[in-house]
C-alpha cells in the first residue's frame, strides 16, 4: 500500500507520460499496461512489487461481512463509497472528510478503521466487517436497551467502535471507557447512555 501514498509532493512526470496527479484522479491517463486488467489481489501485489501505477475503473474483489463481493473501483474510490453506493451497506456514514467523526467506522481485519479514509483498493485481501454484520451482537442490543441513540446517525459508527474497543478490553472499567471512546462524535448527545451500554456489555448484559 505504501506505494499508493508515498511522496505526493513529488508529482513530477515520469518518462512514461504518467503523472501521479493523474493517477490519483483516476482520470484515464495511460497507466503501465501490465496491471490494468488483472484481478484485485494481483494488482495489489504487483503494485507492491513494482510500484506499477494503475488508473481508471477496476473490478476488485472484497471480503465484506464474510462474503466475497465483486465491486468496481477507481484508485480514488473510497471503501465507504463502495460499501454505501454499490453494496447498499449504508450503516457506515459519510459524516466528516477527515476521519474525525468516526461515523464511517468499520472493522478491517478486526481493527476499527474509517471507511472514508481508506481507498477501496486498500481493502483488497482484508476482512471488512460493517455494522450490518453485528445484528444480534451484545453491543447493538445494549445500545437499544440503554437508549444510547437519538437521531441515530452516529450510532452505527459508535456501535462498531464500542465493539472493537470491548474486543480489546472486554473488562473495561468506566474510566477506561470514558478515556478510550473519543474517536466518534455524536451531536444529539448520547454519550451518557453509550457509557451505560458499554458497561452493560462488560457486565455480560444482552448476550444472546
Amino acid at each position, binding site marked *: 500500500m505504501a506505494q499508493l501514498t508515498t511522496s505526493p509532493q513529488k508529482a513530477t512526470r515520469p518518462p512514461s507520460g504518467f503523472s501521479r496527479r493523474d493517477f490519483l484522479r483516476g482520470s484515464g491517463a495511460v497507466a503501465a499496461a501490465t496491471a490494468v486488467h488483472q484481478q484485485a489481489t494481483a494488482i495489489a501485489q504487483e503494485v507492491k512489487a513494482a510500484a506499477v501505477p494503475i488508473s481508471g475503473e477496476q473490478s476488485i474483489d472484497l471480503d465484506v461481512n464474510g462474503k466475497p463481493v465483486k465491486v468496481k473501483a*477507481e484508485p*480514488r474510490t473510497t471503501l465507504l463509497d463502495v460499501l454505501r453506493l454499490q453494496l447498499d451497506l449504508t450503516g457506515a456514514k459519510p*459524516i466528516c472528510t477527515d476521519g*474525525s467523526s468516526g461515523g464511517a467506522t468499520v472493522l478491517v481485519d478486526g481493527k476499527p478503521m474509517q471507511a472514508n479514509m481508506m481507498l477501496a483498493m486498500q481493502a483488497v485481501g482484508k476482512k471488512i466487517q460493517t455494522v450490518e454484520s453485528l445484528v444480534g451482537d451484545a453491543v447493538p442490543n445494549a445500545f*437499544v436497551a440503554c437508549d444510547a441513540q437519538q*437521531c*441515530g446517525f452516529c*450510532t452505527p459508527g459508535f456501535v462498531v467502535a464500542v465493539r472493537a474497543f470491548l474486543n480489546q478490553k472486554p473488562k473495561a472499567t468506566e474510566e477506561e471507557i470514558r478515556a478510550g471512546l473519543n474517536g466518534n462524535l*455524536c451531536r444529539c448527545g448520547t*454519550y451518557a447512555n453509550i457509557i451505560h451500554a458499554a458497561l452493560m456489555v462488560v457486565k455480560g448484559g444482552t448476550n444472546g
Partner: protein
Amino acid sequence: MVEYSWPAKDKATAIGTRVKRLDGPEKATGKAKYSYDINLKNQLIAKGLGCPHAHAKITSIDVAPALKVPGVVHAEPLKKSGDEIEWQGELLAVVAAESPAAAAEGVKAIKVEYVQLPVFVEEDNLVAASAVVEPVPTPRPPNLISGRAWKGGGKTLTVKEPGDNDDEATFGDKEIERLLKESAYVVEATYGIDTITHCCLEPHGSTVEWSGGKLTAHLSTQNVSQTAGQFATPLSITADDVTVHCDYIGGGFGSKFQADYWGVAAARIAKATGRPVKFMLDRDQELKLGGSRPSAYITVRLGADKDGVVQVWDSSHWGSAGASNPGGVSEGQIPYVFTPPNYRRLQTNLKTNHAQARAWRAPNHPQACAITQTAYDDLAAKMGADSLEIFKKNLGTDAKSGSRGAKPSVYLAEMEIGAKLIGWKEHWHPHGKGPAKGSVVEGLGLALHTWGGGGNNSTCSVKIHPDGGVETFCGTQDLGTGTRTVIALVLAECFGLPYDAIKVNIGSSKYPTAGASGGSTTVGGVSAAHRRAGQEAFAKIAELVGKKLEVEPATLEAVKGRVQVAGNPAKSVSWKEACTLIGMTPLEVPGANRNSERTNLTSIQVGGVQFAHVAVDKETGVIKLKKFVAVQDMGLIISPQQAESQIYGAVIMGIAYSLFEQRISDPKTGAILNAELKDYKLARLGDVGEIVVSLYEPESERSRGVIGLGEPPVISPGAAISNAVANALGVRVPTLPMTPQRVLAAIKAKV
C-alpha cells in the same frame, strides 16, 4: 361524547413506563435509512461549488469545463455574472455525476471569476461594526444606525412614572441612573457567547426522483408535512404532485424546516437528466450554510438592594444573525427568566458576512440565559453570598413573582431537588475561596430556564383492523426524540395493548398533516391528537363489546389485551375478539390537535433548573465537568426513558457550547476557519462527566398535560457552567465557549 383526558399516574399501564425506543434496533444495526442512505437505481450524485469568498461579485461563471470531466452528466450555474455573494460557502453551481469523486472533480473544473468586496465578520465588535464605511442602500433602511449596526429594539420600564415637572423623554434614563446610584450593590460587567452552528451529522439534502410528472423527495427534514409546496412552486407543479418522505433524519435542531434551494436544484437536475439525484451538502458547506445560532455580547449594569434582590437592570447587547436579515438575541428575553422591576435594555444587530442564522434549539434563550444569569451570579460573588440563595430571592413567590415562565414554586422545588443531587451544601464555597488541589480548583453554579412548548397542529388517522391489528398514519417526523415511541405508548394505553404491537406510520407528506418539529411542540401535538383518536376508537369498540356482553359501554376498559368491565376480568373479551365485532371494514378514526387550544391534554410553559460542578486547572486553563444535574418539568411524561435521553443530550450540547464550540472567522477575509469536524470542536464522550437527570412530575404539573422537551434543557448549561467556573476561580470568564485560552486570559486580567 367522549371526554378526553389522560389516565391518572397510578392507573396508566403504558404511559410513563420505561420502554426501548421502537426504532432502536434499526438505528443500532445500520438498517435505518436516512435521506443520505436512500440509493435509487441509476442515481446521480450531485455536489455544489461553494463560494470561497465571504463577500464578492461574480464577474463570470462557466460550468462547461465540468462537463468535460469523465463521469459528469450535468452541470448548471446557480448564480450568474453580476450576482453579489454575501457569505462564504454559498452555492454557485452544481454538478451531477456518476460518482461522488467525479462530481467533486467536476466542481473543481468550474471556472468562476470574482471581484472581492470588503468583508465584516467581527460580530463581537460593536464599535468596529458601527465604523464600517460602505455604500448605504437607497432608500436608507430605517433600522440602519451606521456601518453594519442596526437597531434591534429596546425598552425602558421604571416603577416610578414621570411627574408633571419631569421631561418624559429623559425621565427613564435619569431614573435608571438614580436607581443604580441608590443600589446597595452594583455589578458592572460584560458577557458574551459566540456563534455556533447546528452541525447536523447528516448534512442538509435530499435524494429525489421523478415518476411521470410526480416528484418524490427523500428530504432530511423536520417538516415532512409542509415542504412539498416548497419544491412544487419553483418547479411549476403543484404540491399534490410532490411526496416528501423522511423516515429518519440525522439531526435537525431547528435548521431543517425547508426544502432549500439545493433541494429544488436536485429535483430540477433529476428532471433534466431523467435520473434520480442525491444532493447532500459537504461537511464544510453544512457548517457554513446549514444553520447557525446568533452570537450575543452584552454590557450590563445591575443594581440590587441590601438583600441581593435586583431592583434595576441596564443593558446593551449586540450580536449577529448573518447577512440577509440583521437580527440577534431578542431583547424581550433580557434579563432571562428574572423580571426586575426597573430596567432598560437595548438590542443592536450587526450585519456580518455569514449565512443567515436558523432557529437553533430554544431560539434566543440559551444566549439570553448565558449573558444575564451570569450577572446574577456575579452579584452573589460581589456580596460574598450563596448564589443559590440570591437566585431564590430574585424568583419571588407565586403571589409576588419576580420571574416569568413557570411558577416560582416550580423553580424553587426544582432547586431543592437539584441542590441535593449536586451536593450544594457540601461543596459550595464563596467564589474563589474553595480549597485548591495543586493548581486545580472546583466550583458550583446554577441556572434556570423556561419554554412554551404547546402542542402543534397535528392530525392523525388511527386504523383498527378486524383482526386486531392497530396502525396509525401521521405526517409527523421522529428527530430522534422518540416520536414513534410516544405515539405507540399513547395508543397502547388507549387499547390496553403492548406498545410494540402498534404500527406507527410517520414520515410521509401523504399522511394526515402534522406540524413541523420545532419549538418543542411535537410531543404535545401528536400525543393529544392520538389520545383523542384512541379514545374515540375505543368508545366505538366499547359500544360493540357492550352489546355483546350486555353491559354499559361506559363501564368497559382496555387492559392487558382484553376489553373488560372495569376491575372485572371475568366479564371480558380479548382485544382480537372485540375487533372482530367491527365487521369487514377497518375502523378508521381521525384525531387532531390545535395549537391555539389549551386543553388538559397539552399545555405550555415548563420550568427547569440545572447545576454544574466543575474543576478548573489554573495552570492550563482546562475545565472539566465533574457532575451536572438537570431537573426538568415537562408536564405529563409519556416516555420517561426517551425524555431522559433528550435531557442528557441537551446537557451535552450545552457542555459543548460552554467549553468547546465556536464558529471562527478570519476577520480579514471572512473565511470560516473551522468548517471541518477536526477543527469545529464538539464535546466527546470523555468530556461530559457524570450527568444526573431528574424528571419533575408532581401531580400539580402532570395535570397540565404533555409539554415538549426539545428546547428547555439546552438553555441553562451555559450560565450554569460559567457560574461554576466563576465560583471555582473567583474570576469570571466572560465569553463562551470558555476555552483554555480564555480561562487563562481571565485569570491574568484579574492579577
